[in-house]
């Protein structure tokens, strides 16, 4: 039995084996495939999920997003962590 995944700056998030992020050619959009679920991530969630490769830490992901969107790190760090915690609570991300 597993404990709740707690997302912090040092966490290294990834999608669990049974959750797949793939491009849907028919509908021309990214989708998250999970048991009995098909979710369409919004743009921000998609940016974050695509960086959840099991190598980059949350802190690194925040650095990458801050650089990509030319936004101060402090402005997005909290939101990124919150979104990942929410996805972890839904079983869509592990760390």
């Amino acid at each position, binding site marked *: *039995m597993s404990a*709740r995944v707690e997302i912090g700056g040092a966490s290294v998030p990834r999608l669990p*084996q049974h959750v797949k992020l793939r491009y*849907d050619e*028919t*509908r021309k959009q990214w989708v998250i495939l999970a*048991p*009995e679920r098909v979710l369409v991530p919004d743009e921000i969630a998609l940016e974050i999920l695509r960086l959840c490769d099991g190598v980059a830490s949350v802190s690194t992901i925040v650095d990458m997003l801050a650089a990509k969107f030319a936004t101060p790190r402090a402005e997005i760090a909290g939101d990124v962590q919150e979104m990942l915690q929410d996805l972890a609570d839904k*079983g869509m991300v592990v760390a």
Partner: protein
Amino acid sequence: MSAPGAPLAVLAELTHRCPLQCPYCSNPLELERAAGELDTASWQAVLAEAAAMGVLQVHFSGGEPTARKDLEILVRHAAGLGLYTNLITSGVLLDPARIASLAAAGLDHVQLSFQDSRVDGGDRIGGYAGGHEKKVAVARQVRAAKLPLTMNAVVHRQNLDHLGELIEMALALDAARLEVAHVQYYGWALVNRAALIPTREQLERATAIVVEARERLKGRLVIDYVVPDYYAKRPKSCMGGWGRQFLNVTPAGKVLPCHAAESIAGMHFENVTERPLKEIWQHSSAFERFRGTAWMPNPCRTCERREIDWGGCRCQAFALTGNAGTVDPACGLSPDHDALLALAKVESAAPPPPLRYRRIGDAPKMPPKPLSRLGEPV
């Protein structure tokens, strides 16, 4: 009307053969025999057509899909097409070697059914001696093979008071997800309704347990909860709408908008061996009949929830009133709703009659008994 969007998921009912005899089985009363099943190549063609038309997920189901010796071939084929593959199984025919070969074929996920938290209840409800312990062992084997596991528990008046135990079991078996599904009353379950329907109080206790467990187990166990809509105010959005997101292929290749659709008398369902899947989805009379909102009666037609509930469940409307095109009696706005509630109250309070087990060739002769709007339910 413009062409409908592509379905998201296909339920591939590979066979109706099953060692279990659950009295709420979602298969039709008239079960398909092995000789009538599609062969491997036909199923491969169905999967290829499904992927090409935009289907994202395939659920291999039955009956018991592992009764098919070509399951690995079909899983490999589906995975190769980029489909998300899910195995819906009772588990009793599985062993570590078979699980390993399914994992190697590219299976993404296993959904394993349990009939109760206890050995005696599980074996009795499934009608299969030794089944419960076998399932517990298979759950561990699935996790040992590093396959993700959903535990599925169909609940009703005879096991609902064990819900707390079922949740603990899901944790102990390392399931990432638990599906608590109240019985929906079509086909076999309708035959057994009086033996299965919980009281409103029993249902409310169960719902409270789920709400508490979801909060307590956040991030550890996802709990999906399918409520019984006899006690609801609004109907369920059955299948997310008829012919909107989902299709079902029967063991013989018939294409249905939902697994229970054959319970509606007078419908004609086309077969994958006779017409391309995409054409059946887009143009067959069965799919067009209740698609969208144009077919709806009042008050559905002008209801602000018409594109949320999609008119509820057509099979239920037929089962309860004899008319598939009328308002789902589960809806509080249905003229049949009060009779339905009265019936639920009477049946759930009476002692449960003996279970009528699901067996091939043992379909009870039971025409739907329409609800009586005036007097006592019939």
